């Protein structure tokens, strides 16, 4: 029996451009095991001389999709692995991965109760796995997503999110665009703050399970607001990406 969490060589089946800075990579896994929404895979690149680089990427796809996973990767300026994936990797290439990893920032449809998802930038990725799993499992748990992006072109999965909310199964999505908004924009247009969170999360009540993912400043601010709103700190789970400037 293969050692769980061993490295395996996946095949890139599809690459999709989501936004100018984000691409989704569909990886076919020889040793696929169902993940839990919110988990991630580790990716390892090896150069000819043996030099290696590793990073973690959240799984974007639902565990119900067998045999493969989607990883959505944002290009980071100077990012060693993200730039390789964006600029060099093509369909048919092999890539070494291991996973799924992570036992805390996870949601399963069997968990009852309202669900609050708060995303900043590429923090949407693990939350999208939860949203896709929720749909595949036909859950009607009241769910609200507050998604902060710099501009409309930076919203990852926008069309899919619009289609999902049109399905009227209890999912509502709220966007805030912090740097620029298109003409006629009706959503929020500022950084996440107490007023915005209160408006979005309030209807879910104090028993909501909250998942917040994104840059640490956004996560820190949102978590503090939710604690102040009376949510149990133990019901607020956070995952943080990106540099913090020391």
């Amino acid at each position, binding site marked *: 029996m293969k050692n769980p969490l061993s490295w395996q060589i996946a095949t890139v089946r599809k690459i999709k451009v989501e936004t100018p800075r984000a691409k989704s990579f569909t990886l076919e896994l020889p040793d696929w095991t169902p993940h839990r929404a919110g988990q991630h895979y580790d990716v390892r690149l090896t150069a000819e001389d043996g030099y290696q680089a590793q990073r973690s990427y959240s799984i974007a796809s639902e565990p119900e999709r067998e045999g493969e996973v989607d990883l959505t990767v944002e290009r980071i300026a100077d990012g060693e692995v993200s730039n390789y994936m964006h600029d060099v990797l093509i369909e048919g290439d092999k890539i070494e991965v291991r996973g799924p990893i992570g036992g805390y920032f996870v949601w399963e449809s069997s968990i009852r109760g309202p669900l609050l998802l708060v995303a900043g930038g590429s923090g949407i990725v693990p939350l999208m796995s939860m949203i896709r799993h929720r749909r595949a499992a036909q859950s009607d748990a009241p769910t609200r997503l507050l998604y902060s992006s710099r501009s409309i072109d930076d919203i990852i999965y926008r069309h899919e999110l619009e289609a999902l909310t049109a399905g009227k199964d209890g999912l509502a999505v709220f966007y805030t665009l912090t740097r620029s908004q298109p003409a006629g924009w009706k959503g929020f247009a500022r950084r996440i703050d107490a007023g915005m969170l209160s408006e979005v999360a309030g209807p879910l009540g104090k028993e909501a399970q909250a998942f917040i993912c994104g840059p640490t400043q956004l996560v820190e601010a949102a978590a*503090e607001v939710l604690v102040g709103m009376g949510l149990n700190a133990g019901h607020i789970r956070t995952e943080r990406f990106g*540099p913090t400037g020391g």
Partner: protein
Amino acid sequence: MASNFVSRGFVGKRRAGEKTNRLPPGQYLTDDFPVLSAGPTPHTPLEQWTFTVDGLVREKTTWTWAEFLQLPMQAFTADISCVTKWTHLDMRWEGVSLDTLLEHVELDRTALYLTAYSDGGYTTNLPVPDILNGQSFIALRYDGRPLAPEHGGPARMVVPHLYFWKSAKWIRGIRFMEKDKQGFWESAGYHRRGDPWKEERYWND
């Protein structure tokens, strides 16, 4: 551990010299100090803060914040490696060595492990030999300033030779035990000990 697999067209960013020798396997260098907490940041007022050593000790011992500040503080410079792959070299800390704290308690002979416990419910487990002889301290300051709350302030444990999840933020005490009891991340799939030089990231590594 080395694979025979080669990633087509991957060259990578190479840093010359001495710094790369200090990087444990699978890590990358950063000058940043990422925050990767799993939940909201706790905020305990200093007048309510205490640090306790209990469990398999002759007598439970507690310090208030004012009392803790009276303990001899030292400067520590350490390389820190996080399981999420970042390593930051030469991080400058000030704090109280665990050796100093242990001068005030008498450890039972059966005390082989400890659990560090924190505000917000975080715990992590360590074997006693890993914290002795200058290998761990309670940090109150980072880079010349009081430790910020998102980095674990007012006080966190620092155990530089293990992955940084073992360095419990917002620490309030340590409990000595006979058996090793998995803490927060250990129960969520991470390694029992977490040695970055052996790449002990996950439970089965």
